[in-house]
């Protein structure tokens, strides 16, 4: 029986860390200092994947289909295996084609003394006749927590809330707040066949660097 805790964080400040994703190690260390030794010893954390808080539609294979509203702002219900992977692909295929999907999915950059950090939100223009001429898209971080034994997950929201990940954390970078967590008690037949579950989760994120074996795999799937 694998119990997965799905966590959606919102970025509260710019992030200066691993550009592809927040490594599971970084999230683990941020959480580990807030929990007891027993939890620390049993907890596993997946990579955290960045996604924009934007409108979307459920991707092919998900248990629901059609328009999903502001999908990036909350966790979709998990009823099928594919639901676990809705946010796990950097290409974020659920983003609507009727909106500037590549602009929304580009992690906004800012420079600090020549260093490139990722912004926690991005501004877009709106029609001039509207009272508010701009709208913002916030950025989120999605990861999975699980443990080798019972009683560890779910980790309480107030423990996860406000952790900081990435570089220059002491200067306020990389702060994230919990938006939603969801416990997935999941071990159906299909997942049981998929023994190397954690590897698949990280592989769907993409390569760590050019020479990574995982990065060469063909996990990226064409969704059309």
């Amino acid at each position, binding site marked *: 029986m694998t119990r997965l805790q799905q966590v959606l964080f919102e970025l509260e400040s710019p992030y200066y860390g691993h*550009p*592809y994703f927040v490594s599971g190690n970084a999230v683990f260390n941020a959480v580990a200092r807030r929990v007891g030794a027993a939890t620390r010893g049993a907890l596993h954390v997946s990579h955290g994947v960045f996604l924009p808080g934007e409108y979307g539609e459920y991707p092919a294979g998900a248990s629901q289909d059609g328009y999903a509203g502001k999908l990036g702002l909350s966790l979709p219900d998990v009823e099928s295996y594919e639901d676990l992977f809705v946010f796990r692909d*950097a*290409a*974020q295929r659920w983003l609507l*084609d*009727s*909106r*500037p*999907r*590549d*602009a929304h*999915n*580009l*992690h906004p*950059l800012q420079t600090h003394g*020549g*260093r*490139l950090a990722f912004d926690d939100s*991005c*501004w*877009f*223009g*709106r*029609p*001039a006749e509207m009272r508010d001429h701009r709208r913002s898209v916030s950025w989120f971080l999605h990861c999975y927590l699980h443990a080798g034994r019972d009683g560890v997950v779910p980790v309480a929201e107030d423990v996860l809330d406000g952790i900081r990940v990435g570089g220059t954390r002491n200067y306020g970078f990389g702060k994230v707040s919990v938006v939603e967590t969801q416990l997935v008690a999941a071990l159906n037949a299909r997942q049981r066949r998929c023994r190397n579950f954690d590897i698949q989760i990280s592989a769907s994120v*993409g*390569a760590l*660097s*050019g*020479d990574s074996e995982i*990065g*060469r795999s*063909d996990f*990226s*799937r*064409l969704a*059309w």
Partner: protein
Amino acid sequence: MTTLARWVIGMHDAIPDSDVDADADAVDPLVAAYRHDVHKLRARAHSHAVDWVGGVRVNEPVPDGADGDAAVLSRPRGDPEQTVDAYASWRRVSLLTGEVVSSESGESLDELLVADDAEELHATWVSATLPAGFNESPYYPYTSVKYHTLLVAALLDNYRSGHEFGDLFLAVEATGTDSVTPHRTVLSTGGVSLAVTGEPGDRPAARLGDVPARSFADTWARLPASPFDVAGSRRWRVLDSQLRRIRSWSVALQFIEDYVAAFVPAQCAGHGRRGCRGGGEGR
């Protein structure tokens, strides 16, 4: 805000090309490919375009469906929708800055048109800045006419060599050099050189897929080697991570050009980063 009629800017690329070969005076189809979207550089819809600019035949349909295939590499198929609120201009919006690209390129349209030699035209387009200031369609302001045109020419050249779309690869040219293969090179900037070709040889390459689609992120993620030094510099890793997020081909290729110009010092280009401190981002 003017509402643009859909049929004007839509997939005009689907125009039948049966009468092209019949015309005895027709120019080299590759030359025509580089001139097929000149109306966009003059901010005109295809239906309102003139046929001659500066004594040169322009806006001819491209044979073998290369234009339509290149279009669906960068834009959704079917009726276009206005994707950016209150913006319906032929000026491109930069993905990097979010701003409308400056119109001061210092080039004139004539320079893009005058050559009659297809290879010369290709070399001009690869380094051109004027067409990078325009989008493929006001409905998709982040797309780029420059890279759309280069993709059209690359597809056409491959089709004419007997390759089908499913045989094509995105190939990484020798890193750190600005090597250019006529018509096949779709991007060459700051030591980063990419080609769309049916003959990748021993270059690192990834297949484009069976059918044209906005598949840039997938193709990029499958490349067995990066065209730049992701292990050596965080700036290249930031670019690499962003390219795994962009699905439109012309948007992504234009983003590489803009990012390299903005953030990568000349000596850091490609893998030749000796003496490059990378702004303290080497880790």
